[in-house]
Every structure is written in C-alpha cells, then in structure tokens.
C-alpha cells in the first residue's frame, strides 16, 4: 500500500479516536448544567473525566501533528484559512483545561460557579466549532490559486451549521451515556433520562445530515461509485439504532459502546467520502488538496509510518490500562474523601 494511503487512513483514525474520546468529555461539559443539582454532583462529573481528559486531548494534538508531518500543505492552508475558527477553538480548549484544574482550588461559591459556566460554555463551543469546521471541510472550502475566498462568517452556512448540530447532539448523547456508566444514584438516572430524550433529535439531525450531504456536497459520491464502502455508513446507522435498543434494555455499557461506534463510523464515513481529498475546493476540483498533491515525501512518510506503528500500540496499551485502573464509578465518597479529586 502506498504511504499516502496509509497516512490518509491514520489521519482518519486519529480524528475518529479523538472525537470518540474527547467527545464524551465535551458531552459531559455540555450536559453538566442540566443534570448536576449540587456542588457535589458537579465535582462528580468533573471527576469522571479527571484522570483521562488530558490524555484524550493529546489525540487532537497528534492529529494536528500528523497533518503537519504527513500533509504539510494541508496543515498550512487549513490552519491559516480557518484562522478565526481555530483561534476560538484554542481559547475554548485552554479555558476548558484550566476550568477542570482550577475549579476546586478555591473554596468559594462564586469562583466555582464561574468555572462551571466556563465548563458548560466551552463544551458547546467545542462541539459546535468542530462540527462547523468538519462540515465545511466535507463540503469544500472556496479556494483556488489566489488563496481562500471565505470568511469566518461564511463557514456558518446551512450545511456547516447542520454538521455543527450533529456534533452537538452526538457529543451530548455520548457524554450522557458516559456519565450513566460512571456515576451512581440520581445523577446517573438523570443522565440516562437525558440520553434517552436526546436520541430522537440526534436521529433526525443525522438523517438530515445524510440527505443534505447528498444534495449539497460530493461527500457520498465515493460510496455510490464503490458500493462496498457503503458498509461504513451502514455500521454508523446500525450503531445509532443499537444505541437506542440498548438504552431501552437499560444496558448502559452497551449503549455507550454503541455511541463510541457511532462516532467512529460517522467520522470514517466523512473521511472516506473525502478521499482522495483532504480538503476539497468548492470552486474547482483542480484546487482541491489531495493526499497526493499535499503529502510529504515517501522517505518522510516511511519514517513516520515506522514511528507510528511502534508507538501508537504502546500508547493504546497504557491507555487501556489507565481506563481499567479508573473503571469504577465515581461516587460522592470519592470526591468528598479521597485525595487528589478535583
């Protein structure tokens, strides 16, 4: 297999894993205001992601680094064209991280309330920004030899906003299911109920996204020209349906697993639909950034492949160990009595 294709697949996997892992953190942030009824509840929620959020965010940094190393032209143009959106994303990521770490450091109700707001707002902002950014990438950016012809506001087109809504709902349900398997008592019940309530809107938006993608973009062309690939969106849809079935059976672990699969396969659907583009040009395909015209040299890609195939499995191994160590549900006792809790 050619190295560009290997790195295209890795690129898609890095984004998919990032959305799956940070998705539940972002989702927890978004729903925290709705399901937490007390300071203890809020602390429990933050502590469900406490040991893992930072490691999860590194998948984003790795996805960015991989884009830089494997497809430098795409990295350069994507980041400079989406300047303002990325700036907002950066600020949201920074505030989110600081909120988790600093909220519990001062025993004052106003202090904590401010960080609680920051946690919720950055959750919504992150989901929306990732959705809008990827929606516009799926659709293509108005770019040609002269550069980029869009603005930050032109990103907020109907398809971009629809993808934003899809990400908001995906992450919110994902977060609610995560909380449902990581907490106990009333908080857990409220998370379960919220996941159930948000599933129908999620389905509606997901269907609208597919239909609109067919009408407004070339995202689904690859699937029609190579029907075997249809299996990817089909798994996404099947996972989405399975999520509801497991929720109805009150099997929350399996529902969360189905939610993980939904996010992975929706991302794979988008990335497969882009191929061989990384960012299509909405003006003329000649100006699209493809894995061929924007990649690094075979020599660099070969070295990066060796590094990735040695170290990514190691990373996955110790991450699995960490999730096992912290697999227990977070209880009131944990945040009130244990040292180290946020």
């Amino acid at each position, binding site marked *: 297999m050619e190295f560009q294709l290997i790195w295209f697949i890795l690129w898609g996997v890095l984004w998919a894993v990032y959305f799956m892992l940070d998705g539940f953190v972002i989702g927890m942030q978004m729903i925290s205001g709705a399901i937490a009824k007390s300071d203890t509840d809020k602390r429990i929620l933050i502590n469900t992601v*406490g*040991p*893992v959020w*930072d*490691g999860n*965010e*590194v998948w984003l*940094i*790795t996805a*960015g*680094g*991989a884009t*830089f*190393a*494997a*497809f*430098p*032209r795409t*990295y*350069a*143009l*994507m*980041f*400079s064209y989406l*300047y*303002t959106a*990325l700036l907002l994303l*950066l*600020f949201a*990521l*920074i505030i989110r*991280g*600081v909120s988790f*770490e*600093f909220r519990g*450091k*001062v025993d004052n109700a106003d202090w904590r309330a401010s960080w609680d707001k920051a946690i919720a707002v950055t959750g919504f902002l992150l989901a929306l920004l990732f959705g809008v950014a990827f929606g516009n990438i799926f659709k293509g950016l108005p770019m040609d030899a002269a*550069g980029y012809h869009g603005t930050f506001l032109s990103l907020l087109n109907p398809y971009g906003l629809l993808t934003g809504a899809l990400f908001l709902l995906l992450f919110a349900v994902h977060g609610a299911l995560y909380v449902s398997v990581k907490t106990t008592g009333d908080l857990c019940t409220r998370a379960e109920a919220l996941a159930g309530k948000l599933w129908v809107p999620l389905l509606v938006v997901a269907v609208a996204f597919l239909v609109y993608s067919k009408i407004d973009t070339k995202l689904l062309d690859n699937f029609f020209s190579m029907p075997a690939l249809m299996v990817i969106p089909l798994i996404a849809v099947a996972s989405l349906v399975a999520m509801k079935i497991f929720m109805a059976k009150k099997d929350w672990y399996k529902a969360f697993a189905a939610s993980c699969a939904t996010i992975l396969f929706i991302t794979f659907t988008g990335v497969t639909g882009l191929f061989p583009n990384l960012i299509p040009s909405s003006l003329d395909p000649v100006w699209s950034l493809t894995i*061929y015209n*924007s990649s*690094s*040299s075979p*020599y*660099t890609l070969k*070295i*990066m492949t060796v*590094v*990735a195939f040695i*170290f*990514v499995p190691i*990373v996955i191994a*110790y*991450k699995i160990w*960490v999730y096992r*160590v*912290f697999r227990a549900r977070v209880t009131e006792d944990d945040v009130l009595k*244990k*040292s*180290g*809790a946020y």
Partner: protein
Amino acid sequence: MDVVTLSRWQFAITCMFHFIFVPLTLGLSVLTAYFETRWVQTNDETWLRMTKFWGKLFLINFALGVVTGITMEFQFGMNWAEYSRYVGDIFGAPLAIEATVAFFMESVFIGVWIFGWDRISRKAHALSIWLVAIGTNLSALWILLANGWMQNPVGYHLVTDAMGQIRAEMIDFGALLTNANGWIKFFHTVTSGYVVAAFFVMGISAWHLLRKSNVDFFKRSFKAAALFGLLSSIAVAGTGDLSAGDVSRNQPMKLAAMEAVWETRTGVDFYLLLIPDSAAERNSIEAIGIPKMVSFLAFHDPNSLIKGLKDVPRDLRPPVAPTFWSFRFMVAMGMYMLLVSAIGVWLSRKPNLEDYGLFLKVMLFSLPVPYLAGQLGWIVAEVGRQPWIVYGVLKTADGVSRSISTAQVVGSLLGFTLFYGSLGVLDVYLLTKFAKKGPDDDIGGFIKMKEGRG
C-alpha cells in the same frame, strides 16, 4: 504594523508565556518524583508531605503549561503557513513524534498520578510521576531537535513539490536526530529548567523558614533543591559554553550580535562594559577589556577569527541590541545562580539554616532570576537567528501566512495578550495561595496503605 511583525509579536508572546510554565514543569517533575521515591524507600512521612505539597504547586503550573502548549502547534499553520508548507516534510516529523512519544506519556500518567493515590501501589504511583518527568523531558528533546533544525538545517534538500513550489524535503533522518545544535539546546534548556525548579523550591522554602513555619519540612526541601540547583547550574554553564561554540561555528552573525563585534578580526577582546550602537555600526563604549577573551570563549583559541556584523548587509544582520543585552544579562544571571546555589548547598548543610535571614531573603527574591535568564536565552536564540526563520535557507518574512489579514492578527494578538494576561494573574494567585498555605497535615488516603498494598 504588517502581518509579519504582528505575527512575530504574537509568536513571541505566546511562546514566552508558554515558557513560563515549561521550565518549572521540567524540573519540578523530577524533584517531585525524587521526593516520592524517597518516601517509597524510607517510609518517612515528611517525604510524602513534600511530594504532596510540591506536587500540588507542580500541578497548578503543569495545567497551564499543557493548555498553552496547544497554541504552539496551531500557530505554525495559522500564522506561518508558508513556513509550514516549506519545511513540513522535515520539521513536522519531530513534532508528530513529540506528540506520539512524549505528550501521551506525560498527559496520561499525570492523570494516573493525580487520581491514583488510592488505586495503585506506591511503587506504581511513584513510577507514574517518573513517567511524567521522562515524558516532559522527552518532549523537550523533540521540540528542541525541531528548533535545532531551524538554527542549523541538516539532512534535507530543496526540491519542487507536487504543486510546483520549492520546499525542503528530508533526506537523512539520522542527521536530524544527531544535530548537535538540537542536543546542546536540549541539555542547556532542561538543565536551566532544573535550575528554575531549584530556585522555586528554595525561594518558597526560604519564605517559610523566615517565618519559622514547618522548619524541618522546608529545611529538607531547601537542602535537596540547593544541591539540585548547584549541579544544574554547573550543567547550564557547561552546556552554555557548548552552545556558544556551536553558534560560533554555524551562526557567525548571531555570535557577532551576542558579542557586538562589528569588524572581522582575530583575537577579539572582551569588554566588561560595552554599549553597542547599531545606527553607527560601532560600540559607543568599550571599557575594562580582557584581551582576546571573545575569541577564546567562542573557539577556545585566543587568536581565532570572529566575523563582524559589517561582513553582511544590514538586512541580513540580527537586531544587535536585544541579542547583545539578553546574552549579557543571561550570562550574568547564570553566574549569580551558580554562586548563590553554592552558598545554599553550604548553608543548608548546617543545622541552623533558618537563622540565616539575609541569605533566605536573597533566595526568596532570587526566585524569578532563572525564569528571566531562560526567557533572555530564548531571545538570544530566536532574535539572534533573524532575519532567518530557517538559518540561511528561508527568511522569516517569507514564512508568514498569505491568507490572513492585519485585522485578524491584531484581533488574535489582543485576544492572546488579554487572555494570557488573566491566566498569568490566576496562576500567580493560586501558586502564592498554596505556597503560603504550606504543607497539609492530612496526607490523605495513602496512610492506610502502609500495611496493605505497596
């Protein structure tokens, strides 16, 4: 101001702000790991309380280091798209490797360390902070190999890419990995980070010792930090000498700016008091000379030839004043730290360190000195590299993004300044609050593990 100037300011501000947190992370992770290891070995609860107290300050600092680090990765593409496109083939690799090999390790195991007190054995817990320390230090290695390539580009050739533009492609990964500039910078930077941590611990310990609070606790902290600080200061001086040697061989104009040498000459004298005048292309004051010392320091040969700034046109010279003054003050601060940490080692071995009030006050107020020295060091390295973004290959002005407007960068620059400013205030507030509070007597869940696991 144009996009290039604004982007340079933004890069400088965000990098320097990030580098407030990085050096302390590099050093305090190692010290905290050492304290916890001593606790595991001796079962002495003071070591555990030290681990918890310094660990808490470490975490406040670590959080800001992590979040401000993401800006660095994004900014190459956001503001320096032409640079990123031009060098991505060779420069992107160490960055991606840094994330895969180092960031994951530090970010995953910091979570284990914070939340794992009651869940894993003592040894596994101590191991997790060591993995954080190794991860942060490894991440410094990869980013400095990347920076080393910008200072001394090796292992590449220039070719036309798929879209018909010139770019640098990697042809020798081994050359990138063994680039002396990167390795010297790595050792110089991490050891200077250890000095920051040593002075941080000594400064805060001095504050408590002056008030006679938790005397045994802070004497033990001070003693460990003083030795760590002295050894690291010696290493900083040694690697600084290596670094100057590397600059002399590979970046003659940076050396000329650091020492304010205008004319190419052999056996260049060093002046203790010197004021450069860039407009007149000469030094307005040169006094208290040491014969041939610049030549000796640069090449370890008193008669060696030093190239002068006038060798190249003005637009190929780095700005002399910031490079020169930063270098001078950095070196002076380095010598000062060597001296006071040596005194610290000596006094902390006496039974009554808490009675040396004047010295403790000096150490309290010396806390910011290594921070400043580190920032000045980066001004020397980065301003001294100008006008090049990749030395001798690509100019900074040619590396900037073409698609961004002045208004966008003015907005982001203002945003970063205000936002980072408030984060800085928060950081200082929290660090001061917890530093003053002193160690907790309640050492938490680990006590009950004394009999059980671990």
